[in-house]
């Protein structure tokens, strides 16, 4: 799967690429407005991650160009602007998602995963990982056909882990993913721990062969 990352902050760009490359993503980078325009004109991508503040031009104009050329790529805006107006404008212009900086890398992994899923598997709303099967429409989870009853948070957590499979996700990113804007107001590490513990127990009781690996209490990893 080809991803174009348009981001002028080199360090951040490298980290995003490094994080995504552990999965089967092929990442290309553009650091300026002109580079981005050039790449869009020459190649096609499944997903484009787009920063709005770029040297040489406004990222929203790149988005206009993508739409004008009728390029069939998922677009996720990553921006430090973060205000509601930009968010609305970005989504109106046709972006699939919007992420405000700073964000945890697993969050972007999850967003790309979701955008890809929506675009690639239309009609197919099932995700399988090992012997765990998720029905995205019914929001139900089954292990070898036996339904596992999960709370809303546990379900979201499972999707988040699978969306970032093979990579370690931090407690920090889980907390932020599960409680959105409220995560940063709460001391939420305890409740992440509690959710992980419950999810693990429910899955293993149902006979799942998958395992949620704990990395010294700092992060978690979904092993297929």
């Amino acid at each position: 799967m080809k991803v174009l990352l348009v981001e002028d902050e080199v360090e951040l760009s490298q980290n995003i690429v490094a994080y995504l490359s552990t999965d089967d993503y092929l990442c290309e980078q553009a650091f300026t407005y002109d580079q981005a325009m050039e790449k869009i004109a020459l190649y096609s991508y499944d997903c484009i991650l787009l920063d709005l503040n770029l040297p040489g031009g406004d990222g929203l104009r790149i988005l206009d160009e993508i739409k004008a050329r009728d390029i069939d790529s998922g677009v996720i805006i990553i921006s430090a602007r973060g205000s509601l107006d930009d968010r609305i404008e970005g989504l109106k212009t046709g972006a699939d998602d919007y992420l405000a900086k700073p964000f945890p890398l697993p969050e972007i992994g999850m967003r790309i995963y979701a955008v890809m899923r929506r675009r690639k598997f239309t009609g197919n709303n099932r995700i399988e990982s090992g012997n765990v099967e998720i029905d995205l429409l019914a929001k139900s989870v089954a292990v070898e056909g036996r339904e596992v009853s999960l709370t809303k948070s546990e379900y979201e957590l499972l999707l988040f882990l699978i969306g970032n499979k093979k990579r370690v996700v931090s407690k920090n990113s889980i907390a932020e993913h599960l409680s959105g804007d409220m995560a940063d107001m709460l001391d939420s590490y305890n409740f992440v721990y509690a959710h992980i513990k419950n999810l693990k127990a429910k899955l293993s009781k149902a006979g799942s062969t998958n395992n949620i690996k704990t990395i010294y209490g700092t992060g978690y990893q979904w092993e297929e």
Partner: protein
Amino acid sequence: MGRIGRTLAVKSLTRFFVATVIVLAACLPLMYLLMERYYKEDLDELIIFRYDDFVKHKLPAFSTNDIPVWNGYNEDMLILPYREGLKIGEVSQEEHYNRAEGHEIYYRVYYGEVLIEGHPYVFMSRIPMIESKDLWKTLSAQYGVLFIVLLVSLSVLYYYMSKRLWRPFYTTLGAISRFDLGQGVVPAMGTSDTVEFERLNRILEELLSGNIRVYNDQKKFIENASHELQTPLAVFLSQLDMLLQSPDLTDRQSRTIQTLYSVASRMTRLNKNLLLLAKIDNSQFRQREDLDFIQLLNAQLEYLRPMAEDNGLSMTVQTDNSLIINANKTLVESLVNNIVVNAINHNVQNGAILVSVCGTRFTVTNTGEGTALDPEVIFRRFNKFTDGRKGNGLGLSIVAQIVRLHKWGIAYEYTDSGHSFIVNFAAENGSTSVPSTRHE
């Protein structure tokens, strides 16, 4: 301010009144002296005239035999034998016995020399003075009436004149009392034809517009600074996320990473809230709509309730059916989140939270430490109760700022059931005042 102040009008009128009373009262002895003097002059003229009249008309035909008869009829014009030591030819004041009064009183007396049949005699012409007691009495009665008329009319005059004179001052005072730095508008002071007031107005206008400029720069600076911090924070966080991917992390390294995550998370939320505050200050949330607060509250509670329960707290919700308010949706969501999260953060183990909407009052009560908080301080940015590990010291100031922006009211109460924060959506310019956020 310990002393109860008085208004300018009352103060100046009081002073004017006292001063006038003193001046008018001091005039009374002066009046007395003047009266006495002119009275004496009058009397002196009269007694000298009587002497002259006697010399002119009576003396040529007067004999020494006539003296006892004359003296018998003229009590105040006596012909006496000449003796040395009398002040001849000038008026003096002497005490003589007065039969009518029955005691000695003051007389104006004039001694004139007369020659009767070749013998020297003295003609004494005298007239009794008005008794000073009587003069005082008369004078006081007359002057008293004048005194009161003067005092009242002067005071009334003074009151209206000073009121007129100070009118531009009160206009200015009213204008600046309505000044709100956050609104960023210099109030119209009006103009005055009094040089000093005109100067005051111009100086105040300059001062206020200067303040607004500095305040705006400051706000813009905070917003820009927070913006600029977002990218380095994003880099920092992504580095941590990458570090976590290393397959051979030791326990110790993990712990360090976890600490860094906590710090990054605190920085992020601090920055986000600073940005939000700056944006509220910069009035970037002008858009208002009619929305159902109950509906919005329930939507937020869907996230907040599990959070409270995850923290081992029980949450009770009591609401009416609907409450329509005109507000900015994003900000109202933020208000609800901040108040409820505050109630979660500052709770006790197995504590409780009561969320209720009654009429136009939105109340969140939580169990917590058993001492009341200082309502003067809790809404300020980074107040002394701020505990870095919980919240960021900005939650309640964000709430206060949102309340202020919408001209609602907010109050804090501490009762047996715990700490309550009450937002009153109807308190447009109302009773419960919003503490203004101080920038420290």
